[in-house]
């Protein structure tokens, strides 16, 4: 236990501390970081462009969460309640592709979404899309990419929650004069809210930091915070500013996480009281 945890702690804390320190530094022309106490990078974050991108990323990540929830719920529900003995197989079928190389998957998805890709082809054929319609390099394209990238993180916790849920809860809802829809909204959904919350966190975090989706499927108006961070590290050699951006993003994520932890703590505390 000891060597493992010492190494982990040193490595993680050390490396994150380095990022934090670097955010106050500068670089030499060759990109070597110079440490210092230089608030300039954080001052630079005041640039309205960053706020716009940060807000956009938040928006995309939230939208991704919502879409994932709306799509994943029926899928998880169908599998958990009607999957019978194929349950495990079906869930495995969902999970397995997500362990294929992320880049290859996203690249394949971008081909599917491309102007003369199969998806638009089908949509045009059934008249849902006109000739000029396109998905790539639009906001829906980026969100579609994020959804494709991370939906599995929504399905698994939802499935687990639905699977664990006592089916007689639904029956109790019906028994107490609820129609099918009311029972869903008043009983099933609240009973699985923890799964949904866990799923949202698991989707939100990586979606917020992602840069591949915006790179492959976004246009000029779809730049996300991840792309800017990547730019700072890969172009213009501005690691300190990149670090500062990273700190900003982590602060935003951390606030979100804190809220989530609070909630689950509270739920747990209630459960044991």
């Amino acid at each position, binding site marked *: 236990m000891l060597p493992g945890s010492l190494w982990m702690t040193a490595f993680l804390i050390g490396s994150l501390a380095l990022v934090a320190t670097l955010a106050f530094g500068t670089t030499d022309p060759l990109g070597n970081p110079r440490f210092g106490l230089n608030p300039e990078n954080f001052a630079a974050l005041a640039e309205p462009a960053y706020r716009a991108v940060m807000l956009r990323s938040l928006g995309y990540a939230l939208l991704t969460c919502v879409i994932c929830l709306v799509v994943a719920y029926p899928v998880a529900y169908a599998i958990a309640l009607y999957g019978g003995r194929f349950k495990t197989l079906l869930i495995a079928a969902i999970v397995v592709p997500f362990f294929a190389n992320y880049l290859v998957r996203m690249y394949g998805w971008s081909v599917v979404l491309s102007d003369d890709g199969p998806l638009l082809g089908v949509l045009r054929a059934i008249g849902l899309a006109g000739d000029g319609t396109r998905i790539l390099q639009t906001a829906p394209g980026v969100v579609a990419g994020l959804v494709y990238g991370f939906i599995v993180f929504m399905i698994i916790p939802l499935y687990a929650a639905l699977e664990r849920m006592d089916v*007689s809860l639904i029956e109790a809802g019906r028994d107490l004069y609820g129609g099918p829809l009311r029972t869903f909204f008043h009983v099933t959904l609240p009973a699985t809210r923890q799964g949904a919350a866990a799923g949202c966190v698991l989707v939100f975090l990586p979606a917020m930091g992602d840069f591949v989706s915006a790179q492959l499927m976004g246009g000029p108006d779809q730049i996300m915070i991840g792309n800017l961070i990547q730019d700072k590290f890969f172009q213009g050699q501005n690691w300190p500013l990149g670090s500062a951006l990273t700190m900003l993003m982590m602060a935003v994520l951390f606030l979100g996480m804190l809220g989530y932890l609070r909630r689950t703590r509270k739920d747990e505390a209630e459960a044991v009281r």
Partner: protein
Amino acid sequence: MTPVTTTTTTTAAGPATGLAPAVRLDDVCKRYGDSHAVRDLSLDIAPGEFFSLLGPSGCGKTTSLRMIGGFTDPSDGAILLGGKDVTALPPNKRDVNTVFQSYALFDHLSVSDNVAFGLKRRGVDRAGIRERVAMMLERVQLTELADRKPTTLSGGQRQRVALARALVNRPQVLLLDEPLAALDLKLRRQMQVELKQIQREIGITFVFVTHDQDEALTMSDRMAVLNDGRMQQCGTPEDVYERPANSFVASFMGTSNMVPGTYRDGAVVMDEGPALPVGPRQGIAENSRVNLAIRPEKIWLSDLAPGMARVTGVVRETVYSGPTTTYLIELTPGVTVSVLEQNTDRSRMEDRWSGGEDVEVGWLPEHCLVLN
């Protein structure tokens, strides 16, 4: 097991009242694929009755209850509630409520919101809801806990919430699927008393599923014993325990001693022992092989009365268990009966046998059952 004997009334009619039965099952069947979960079940349950469905695991108790509640559609037959055919209605349209085995409480709602759930769905106004919920919580002694979440309650409290949630809707019939199965013995006894008391006070018909014979015997007004999807017997606890319709019911309802022998001249002749008078029995052929069944508490060990069947045996084992002592007595080699004796009088008990003594046992002929 053997099918229903002819002595049982197939449509088990409730006590003769002028009212329509609260629940009537009319030749109800439920098939799953090739197998029958419930076959030709007909049953009348009178308003205000505490009616139990009893039987071993898989005999179709839950299925029957679910058909009454509307969660499972019968393959055949009709279900009437208060004289009205409800066979085709969904659960939310039936005037019955269910207490589920798992309680199925809504963990995201407080106790009072759980109880209010059904009233809200039926559009009762807010003041009405508040009042009825408060009254109900009072009755089940949960007023203190009204704002707690169900996850923070004990098993007994959870059960009371489930009960309140169902009863507050004042259904015609309350269905209970083994509501006590999850509780430990002590709590269970306590809950049995409470449940019975509430039923008596409120006067609603209870249909109660259990696989515990003691529970069914102590709580029910009437009960039906099921096996393998078929009704075996329906009647009061005494009917069922003292006059079982067939050997399945006899052995399912508590311990029975079985003494093999040959039926001859109004007596069962043991293979290597005496003839035990049982009186004339209908439906038993002369000279046929039979089992004489007799309950351990019906065998006497002392003060034998005249007219009793008597046999001598050897005391093989004595098991003291506080209020009672059980003796294992070997009548002939291989035929052992257990005899239950209440420890009424310690002075008598103390000089009882510890094993090996000869003893004379006896019973009244009317207490024994002759089974093919």
